[in-house]
C-alpha cells in the first residue's frame, strides 16, 4: 500500500484539522476531514482508512474538561471499533486535544476497574500558553517516533499536565515502553543530551527498582523547571503510546512545524533546516510501505 488514507476527525470546536490534513498530504498520504457525527453514525467507516488522527482544538469547547465530551462520545459509540482498527495494524494519532481525547477514552491507557489511572490536568501555571519546547523521545515502541531522537515543537494548551493516580502506574508505563516523548533541555545542551542518552542506554540510572528510565528522568517527580517543562507534567511526559506502539498521543503540535519558516527564529537559521514535525507524519506513512 503506497498511499495510506487518513481520517482526520473533526468535532465541534476542532480547529487544527486543516493543517493536520495538509501535513499528512505533504508526506504522501491522502487525508480526509470527517465530521464526528459521520463516524458515530457509521463506525464501519473506519474500514476505508489506515490512519485515524484526532487533531488539536477545543472539542465541544473543552467544557467540563479538555477532550472529555468527545472522549465520552467515542467510548459510547466507537471504542471497540477503534481497538479493532488498531489491532488490525492501523495507526491512531492524537495531537493536543486529540491526546486529551485518547487518554480520557482509555485508548492509550486502559481503564482499571476503579476508573482511569491517569489524566491531563490543568497546567501548573493555571493558564493557556503557546510556546516552543525541546523534546526527546524515550525508549518506546512508538511507531511515530522511530529514528527520532529530539524535536523542537510548539505547545499551545491549558490542560496538558500529565498526572497519574499513583507511582506504580508511572512505573508500569515506563516499563511497558509507553513513555514516548518528554520535555527536555535544549538539544544543543550536550551534557543534558549525553545524560539522557546514558540514562536510557546504560540502564544504570534506575528509578523504583530496576526499570530503565525514559527520556533521562531519574525521578518522575523531579521535573524540569518551567518553561522547559511547560505545564508541570509528571516525568516531563509530553507524549504516550499504547501497548502496541500504534496509538500515540502528544501535546506538542508537529503539524505546526512542517516548513522551515514556521520555526520561531528561522531567520537566524540555515536554509536547509526542515520542519521537525515532518518526521512524525513520515513515520506514520512509512509504516504502510
Amino acid at each position, binding site marked *: 500500500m503506497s498511499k495510506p488514507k487518513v481520517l482526520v476527525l473533526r468535532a*465541534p*470546536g476542532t*480547529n*487544527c484539522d*486543516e*493543517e493536520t490534513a*495538509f*501535513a499528512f498530504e505533504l508526506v504522501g498520504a491522502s487525508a480526509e476531514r470527517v*465530521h464526528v*457525527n459521520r463516524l458515530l453514525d457509521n463506525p464501519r467507516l473506519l474500514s476505508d482508512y489506515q490512519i485515524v488522527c484526532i487533531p488539536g*482544538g*477545543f472539542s*465541544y*469547547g*473543552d*467544557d*467540563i*474538561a479538555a477532550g*472529555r*465530551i468527545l472522549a*465520552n*462520545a467515542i467510548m*459510547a459509540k466507537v471504542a471497540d471499533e477503534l481497538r479493532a482498527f488498531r489491532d488490525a495494524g492501523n495507526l491512531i494519532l492524537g495531537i493536543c486535544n486529540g491526546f486529551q481525547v485518547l487518554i480520557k477514552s482509555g485508548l492509550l491507557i486502559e481503564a482499571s476497574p476503579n*476508573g*482511569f*489511572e491517569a*489524566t491531563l*490536568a*490543568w497546567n*501548573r*501555571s*493555571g*493558564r*493557556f*500558553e*503557546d*510556546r*516552543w519546547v525541546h523534546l526527546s523521545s524515550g525508549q518506546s515502541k512508538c511507531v511515530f517516533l522511530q529514528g527520532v531522537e529530539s524535536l523542537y515543537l*510548539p505547545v*499551545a494548551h491549558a490542560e496538558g499536565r500529565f*498526572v497519574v*493516580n499513583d507511582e506504580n502506574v508511572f512505573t508500569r508505563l515506563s516499563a511497558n515502553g509507553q513513555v514516548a516523548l518528554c520535555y527536555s533541555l535544549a538539544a544543543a545542551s550536550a551534557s543534558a543530551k549525553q545524560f539522557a542518552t546514558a540514562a536510557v542506554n546504560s540502564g544504570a540510572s534506575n528509578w523504583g527498582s530496576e526499570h530503565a528510565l525514559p527520556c533521562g528522568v531519574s*525521578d518522575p*517527580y*523531579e*521535573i*524540569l*523547571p*518551567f518553561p522547559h*517543562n511547560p505545564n*508541570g507534567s509528571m516525568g516531563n511526559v509530553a507524549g504516550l503510546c499504547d501497548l502496541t506502539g500504534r496509538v500515540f498521543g502528544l501535546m506538542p503540535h508537529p503539524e*505546526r512545524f*512542517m516548513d522551515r*519558516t*514556521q520555526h*520561531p*527564529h528561522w*531567520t*537566524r537559521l540555515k*536554509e536547509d533546516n526542515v520542519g521537525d514535525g515532518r518526521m512524525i507524519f513520515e513515520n506514520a506513512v512509512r509504516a504502510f510501505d
Partner: protein
Amino acid sequence: MSLWQVTIFPQEANGDLWARQIEASVRSGILGLKTPALQHFSIASARGFLVQGALDEQEIERIATKLLCDSTVETFTLTKPLHPAQGEVDNSRAADEDSGSDVTLVTVLPRPGVTNPEADSALQAIRLMGYQPLAARTFRQYRVRGLDENDVHLLATKVLANESVEQIEFGPIRLQQLTMDADYRFQLTHIPLQNADAEQLRTISARHQLSLNLEEMQTIQAYFQSLDREPTDIELETIAQTWSEHCSHKTLAGKIEYRDENGVRNFNNMLKETIFAATHSIRKQLGDSDWCVSVFADNAGVIKFDDEINLTFKVETHNRPSAIEPYGGASTGIGGVIRDTLGTGLGARPLCNTDVFCFADPNTPISELPPGVLHPRRVMQGVVSGVRDYGNRMGIPTVNGAVYFDQRYMGNPLVFCGNVGAIPHRHSFKQPQPNDLIVSIGGRTGRDGIHGATFSSAELTEASERVSSGAVQIGNPIVEKMVVDVVLQARDLGLYNAITDCGAGGFSSAVGEMGEAIGAEVWLERAPLKYQGLSYTEIWISEAQERMVCSVPESKWEAFHELCESENVEATVIGKFVPTGQLTLKYGGHEVGKLEMKFLHDGRPGTVRRAEYSPAPSEPLTGPHLTSGANFDPRQDIVSLLGSLNIASKHWIIRQYDHEVLGRSVIKPLVGVHNSGPSDAAVIRPRLDSRRGAVIACGMNPRFGDFDTYHMAASSINEAIRNCVAVGADPSRIAILDNFCWGYTDRPSTLGSLVRAALACQDMAEAYETPFISGKDSLNNEFSFINSTGQRQTISIPPTLLISALGQIDDVAKCVTMDFKQAGNHLFLLGQTFPELGGSHFSLIHGLQGGRVPQVDTTSSKQLFADLHQAMLLGWIRACHDLSEGGLAISLAEMAIAGGLGCSVDLGAISVDLSDLPTAERSLDHYATIVKLFSESNSRFVIEVANEHREKIAEHFAGRLYELGTVTDLKSLQLNDGPRCLVDVDVETLRQAWLQPLDFGNEYAGESRADKEANHE
C-alpha cells in the same frame, strides 16, 4: 423532578490553581482590603454543576463520576440546594475548626439567561449518556478564611464575580429550579407620538433607550403623521437601531462645518470627502492594476491577494461592553469581528486576529478609582482572558496587537478586535434575490444584548454598571466555530445568495440592511428562542451572539437545512425577501410593524454639526529634569523606558493567545533567539500551499494627539506602514483601516480634532498610495461620575486613532526580523532625526511638557520605504527594526534583547539640526544627545548588514543613512557620542527591566520541588 448540586474539589496538593490566582491578586494590594492583617487570609475553590431533571441519586452519581469529575485530580460531593424559603439560620459564616477563624462560603453563578456554554455542553453530554435532564448551570464556590464581612463582600464583588452577568450567594446555594421559561401573552404596543411636544419626544426617546435626538424624533413623528397612525414599539426600535451612531455613523458620515487655522470647510459627508475620497483617487490612478476589490461597502474591506483569493480585513471596537464586563465584552468583540469576516461577500474564511487595547495603569491604587469603575488590572485581565478564550477556541491565531496605557482610559477602556480573512475571487460579492428565504443560523435568540447598538452610542456613567447589564453578553465560541464550518461548505455548494452577521441591532439591522433594495417580511414567532417569554420586539432587536442571516433560494433550502443539521447547527426560516420595498414584521399572524425601506435607510435628518480646531500653541520642551545637565543619566533612562508600560514586553498577554493555530505563521509576535523579541509586524501565509505572505501591523500614538491630531494621525499611518515594511512588506501593496475612538463629538472642539485627523488620513493615504479599505468609529467615549465632593466630573479619552495595516510579500522567505543576528555585522540608522520630543516617552517618564510633536515627510519616506524593500528583496538586510516609542535607544536595546547579542554604537555620525528651535530648548545641556537617543521622529529604521553588503547599502541609501557601529558578542549595549561613553549596560539587565512590569504570571517558578514533597506525604 430534582435539582442536584455536584460540587467538585481539587484533591492534588497545590492543585487549587484558581484559588492561587485569586490569592495573588488579593495580595497584590489592588483591592485595598481593610482587614488589618492578611496573614490569616486564605481561599479554597471548587467548581460545580447544578442539574435539574428526573434523575435519581444513583444516576446523578454516575453522571458525576463518568462525566463531570476527573477522579485522578478531583473529588466531588452530591447534595441538593436549599429551598429559597428554607433555613432562616444564617450559616454563611461558621467557625472553622481547623484555624479557629471565620469561614465564609461564597458561590458565584451565571445569572439566569446569561449564556453558559459549559452548562449547555454538560446537558448535551448527559443526554449522550441516555438521560433526559431539563437544565443545568455551572457555579464556582469559595471558602474564604480570615476576612471580615465587609472585605468578603468586596472580594466577592470585585474579584470573584461580576454582577452584571453573575449572581453571588453567601452561604449555601438556595434555589428551587433552573428553568426560566415564562409565558408570553401577545399584546401589540403603540407609542403615541402624533401629538407629543418637543419635551415629550425627548422623554419618549430616553424612556425607551432609543438614543434619538429631538430632530430625529420630529422626523419620525412627521412620518407617522403622514401615515395617520401611531408607531408601534417595534417600529420605533427599528428606526432607532438603524439610525444609531453605531449602525449608521451619522456623525462622521454627516454634514459638518469645520473651522481651523486655514479657514472654514463644509462637508456633506465628512468620511466620504476625506478618507473614501483618497481611496477613490488611488484606485483611479492605479487603473487596471487596481488591487482593491470592495471598499467601505461590505462588512470588511476586500483586496486582491493572488490569482485565486482575496483578503478581507476589518477591525471593530467593543469598548463599552468591555468597560462593564471585560471578559464578555472582549470575547463577544472578537466573536463579532469574526462574523464580519464570515459575513463579507459570500463568506470569507477567518485567518487571524489582531487585538489592540487601551487601559489605565494596572497598578493604580484602588483609592484613586472613580466610583463605578472596574480596576484597570481587572479590566486588563478580563479583556485578555476574553480574547484568549474566544480566539483560541475558534482556532484563529491572534498574531498582532498593541497595548497602550493612559489614565484617561480609566472609565472607558478601548478594545479593538480585528480579523483578516481569505475569500475566493468568485465569492467576493453577494446579492440577495427577491423571494429568497430569510434564514437565521447559529445561536438562539434570548433577552441578552438588548439595546447594545444604542448603548454603545451613549456616554458611560457610574450607573452604567447597573442599568446596561442587558447589553453585556457572554459568547459561545464553539457555536460560532460550528457556524463557520457549515457556512463555508454551504458557500462552496452555492446554497445561498447573500449572508451577513447579526451584530449590533440583531435581526433588525441584519434583515433591514440585506433587504434594503428589495423589501422583507419577517415572521418573528419562528425565531428559535433560548427560553420562552420574549416579546416580538425583544426577538427583533436582541443582539444574542453567534447568529448569521442568509438569503437562501427556496429551491436550495432543503440542502442548506440538511447540511446544517448534519453538523448540529440550527437553521430556521424566519421570513422572506418579498419585493415590496417595505419591511413588514409579523408575529403569529399579527402585523406588528410596517416601514418603508426608503424611510428607514434614507429618512434620517441631516444635522449640520459644528467642528472647530485650533492647534495648541507650540511651547518649548520644559520640565525639572532638563534644568540641570547633572540629571542626565541615559543608562537609567533606557532602563526606565524599557520598564514603562507602553514599551515593556507584552509576553504575558501574547503567550496566552494561540498565535500559531492554522499552521500559517511565518513571523510570530515574539521573535529572536529566545523567542521573546517584539516583532514589528506579523506575517502569515494565507494559503498553506503558497509562499506568498500577508503582513499585519498597526500604528497608534494617542500622546501625539495632545499636540495636534493631524500629526498624530499622520504618525500612526507612518508607523503602521513602516512596521509592515520593516518585516518585508511591499510598500506599494499595503491597505489600511481606520478606527476613530473619540470623546463627546457634539462638542465642536472634540469633533474638530477628529476632522483634523481625518484630513491627515486623506493626505497620507494619497501621498503613500496606501488606500483605506474599511473603518469604524466609536464616539462619545467619556466617563462621568459624581466625585467625593458631590461634583459631576467627566473623563474623556484622548483622541485615539488606530491604524491597522495589511501588507503583502511575494515570498515569505525574504522576510526580515528585528533581532541582532551576528556579531561583527554593521548597524545603520535610516532616515532623518529631528528634535521631536513632544509627546515622546522620554517626556512621559520625566514629566516634560511642550516640545515638537513628530511630523511626517511623505516624499522622502515613500522613497525610503521603497528602497528598503528593494534592499530586502536583494537579501542585504539581516535585521531591521522601526524606531517608535523610546526612539533609537530603545530600538537598539530591543534588537539586542531579541538577538542575545550586544552592540557598540557611536551617535557621532547622526546629524541633528537644532537651529530653528527656541533658544531655551536648544541650549539645554546634552540636548542633541537626548534628541539622537530618544526623539520619536517618524520614518526611521535601524538595519543590520553583513560586511559583504556594506558598500552596496551605503550606495543604495546615500544621504539617508548614518553609520552607527557594529553588533558585538559582548552582551552589552554600548552607546557613545563621539569620544564620550554614554551608556554601557548589560543586555540581561535591560531584558529583565523589559520583561518584568507586565508579567502577572510568574508564580509558577520554582514550584516543582514543593509539589514533589507534597505529593510524597
